[in-house]
């Protein structure tokens, strides 16, 4: 066998050197790629595009030729409303290209991009895979949207965007102090949903006090209809009517104390009264049998089939349950019933707040473009388009004139008018997701409503969860201002 210098020499031959360096290269290339895909990469956000010049038509100073990267949660509201708004953007800035990505897998697709420091410019962070907003804010991953709120609105150059929004929208986007991190685009009405037709057939009115509620349920039971059903597998739907009821009975401060994770917040008498009221529904057999084993779709279907009278839910239910809802269902929503006349807030007190949270990441390349796209979506025309096509209100105040409203939406608008200033907005579900959904919802209220724990036990358990969350240094804590 002929030998080359590499095999006989002690030192490194040229060929070996080449081979080895090639081998190292082969290994190190994917290794570095792998590493940079993980946490070790350092995104310093220097990839930002240059700002454009501000003008009356372009109050945010958008770079007219910079591309825009827009990721939308493709859920109950679909993607058409966003596509329509993008068309407006592209008309205003013909040189800009919009990359639009509708997806249901928000976290799966976006977490690596946040990690890599190259997130998109605008995100609808919603759905089951929503990224925890509290964490994003805590990790300083979001752009302050104050510039957008102070920009002139599309419809009226003399009006700022912030003056065109529904009450509560801006506060919801704040976490700690003045910056506004999130802009909620939809406006959700939470409450007790029912078929007006079914209620009429029982010869009953929507009950305003708990005694009336029990009487209506008894009436329904005699006809073989359950009083209530709820998403038993996701019992964190119950607070949609339970929290505003607590607020109505005990006043706003009770809900604020709960949100602030104050010690003994859950031991307030109003909480106990309301828990006992709900527990009574269970004890008297007014809850549809098998409810604890149903998910949200199954319970909504049982309800649209007329097996149960009331369901705690949000205004998306009209779109979501449309397939099984009979044409003459006559969907209606009402603020939760109270206990009696001694309640602190009047009947009509309800929970309404923003939905579909839009965010602009701090490391976005074109944050002005992201905000500009939002500004377009908050115009009257885009908002009307949204309301008309997906049966939901938007954050834009008004914009329902001249649109034929569906029964549920109409009833929601009426309920909001009745509520007036008495709109409450509990924040547990966007400040502390795990605490609200899994601990209070599933392990606490869910067990109580399934009849496996008494209200007193449940309150003790929830208070313990809340105290743990208050002490947990791995969670960022927020307070009502």
């Amino acid at each position, binding site marked *: 066998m002929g030998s080359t210098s590499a095999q006989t020499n002690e030192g490194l031959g040229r060929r070996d050197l080449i081979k080895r360096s090639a081998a190292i290269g082969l290994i190190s290339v994917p290794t570095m790629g792998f590493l940079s895909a993980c946490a070790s990469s350092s*995104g310093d956000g220097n990839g930002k595009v240059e700002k454009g010049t501000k003008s009356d038509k372009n109050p945010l100073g958008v770079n007219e030729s910079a591309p825009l990267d827009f990721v939308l949660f493709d859920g109950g509201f679909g993607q058409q409303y966003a596509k329509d708004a993008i068309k407006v953007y592209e008309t205003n800035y013909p040189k800009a290209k919009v990359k639009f990505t509708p997806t249901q897998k928000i976290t799966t697709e976006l977490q690596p991009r946040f990690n890599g420091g190259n997130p998109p410019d605008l995100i609808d962070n919603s759905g089951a895979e929503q990224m925890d907003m509290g964490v994003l804010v805590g990790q300083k991953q979001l752009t302050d949207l104050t510039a957008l709120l102070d920009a002139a609105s599309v419809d009226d150059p003399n009006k700022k965007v912030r003056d065109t929004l529904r009450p509560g929208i801006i506060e919801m986007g704040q976490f700690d102090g003045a910056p506004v991190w999130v802009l909620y685009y939809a406006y959700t009405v939470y409450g007790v949903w029912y078929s007006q037709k079914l209620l009429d057939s029982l010869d009953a009115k929507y009950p305003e006090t708990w005694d009336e509620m029990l009487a209506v349920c008894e009436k329904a039971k005699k006809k073989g209809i359950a009083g209530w059903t709820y998403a038993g597998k996701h019992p964190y739907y119950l607070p949609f009517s339970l929290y505003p009821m607590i607020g109505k009975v005990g006043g706003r401060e009770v809900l604020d104390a709960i949100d602030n994770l104050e010690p003994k917040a859950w031991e307030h008498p109003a909480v106990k009264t309301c828990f006992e009221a709900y527990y009574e529904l269970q004890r008297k057999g007014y809850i549809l049998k098998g409810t604890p084993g149903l998910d949200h779709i199954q319970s909504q279907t049982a309800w649209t089939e007329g097996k149960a009278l009331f369901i705690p839910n949000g205004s998306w239910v009209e779109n979501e349950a449309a397939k099984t809802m009979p044409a003459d269902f006559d969907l209606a929503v009402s603020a939760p019933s109270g206990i009696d006349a001694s309640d602190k807030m009047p009947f009509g007190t309800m929970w309404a707040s923003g939905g579909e949270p839009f965010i602009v990441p701090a490391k976005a390349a074109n944050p002005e473009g992201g905000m500009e796209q939002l500004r377009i979506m908050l115009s009257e025309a885009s908002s009307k388009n949204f309301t008309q096509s997906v049966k939901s209100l938007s954050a834009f105040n008004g914009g329902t004139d001249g649109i034929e409203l569906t029964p549920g939406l109409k009833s929601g608008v009426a309920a909001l008018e009745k509520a007036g200033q008495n709109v409450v907005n509990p924040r547990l579900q966007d400040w502390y997701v795990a605490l609200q959904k899994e601990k209070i919802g*599933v392990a606490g209220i869910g067990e109580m409503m399934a009849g496996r724990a008494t209200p007193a036990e449940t309150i003790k358990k929830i208070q313990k969860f809340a105290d743990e969350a208050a002490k947990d240094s791995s969670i960022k804590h927020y307070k009502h201002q």
Partner: protein
Amino acid sequence: MQHGKYRFIVGFLAAPLALYALFVIWPFIQSIYYSLTDWSGLSPEFGFVGFDNYSRMLDDEIFWKSLQHSLTLAVVLPLVTVGLALFFAFMLNVGGRRRRGAAIAGVRGSAFYKIVYFFPQVLSIAIVALLFQFAYNPNSGAINSALKLVGLGSIQPDWLGDPKLALICVMAVLVWSTVGFFVVLFSAGMASIPRDFYEAALLDGANRFTTFFKITLPLLWDTVQSGWIYMGILALGAESFAVVQIMTVGPNGGGPDYSTVVLPLYVYQKAFRDGQAAYATTIGVALLLVTLAFAAVVMKLGRRERLEF
């Protein structure tokens, strides 16, 4: 050409070993490193915190619950699945009534049963979980409807909604979906056992019971052991995660009241819901240790003398 042997072997092994190191070993080492940091998973910045995550894990009630459930699955599932599969495979291959001319045979229609048992294997676990989610529906699901049909209308459990039953429901689904694979595996093993052994046993007057324990099981032991470890790892890992995540109560499954939360689910929740990726990797490391310990225990307990035939 003896002198080139090692170079030859190394040459062929280098690439797979490098791939293995890169995609299997390295991520493990990385996760151990990340478990010592406060990485959120949502930003590239993080700091080193030492063993904070580990001490937090030891105080975490839900971690202990998920560990307990994972261990239950790792013990009960292989026991039930492998036991059932052995029984079915034996009946299909050996347990039948003797017909003329054949020393051993399966029960009548065994070829058909084999296909039926294997059938769930062709379905994705996500589809299996969804199917059973409907079957467990307390109002209109197949199971409660069947109970009503046979006059047991007074027994209408909430199944997945009941903390006492939920974990059992989950286990039943996993057994249903995996038992067919082991039936086929063990059938293949049994086919390689020489027929003379059975014939000799028959001549000595052995019944099915004795035949199984004195001939089939000892000769099949290696296969059973691998099956056992494989099933245990399924129970600790991906399969249990999918079923719990899709079927059970709560925002990401795991309920009611944490009665079905398992380690891989808890890793997922911490990493992708709570933005605590570092803590999630800590739980992942615990899961790694549990899996290794499980394999070690089974190997140790299962050690037998190798039979030659």
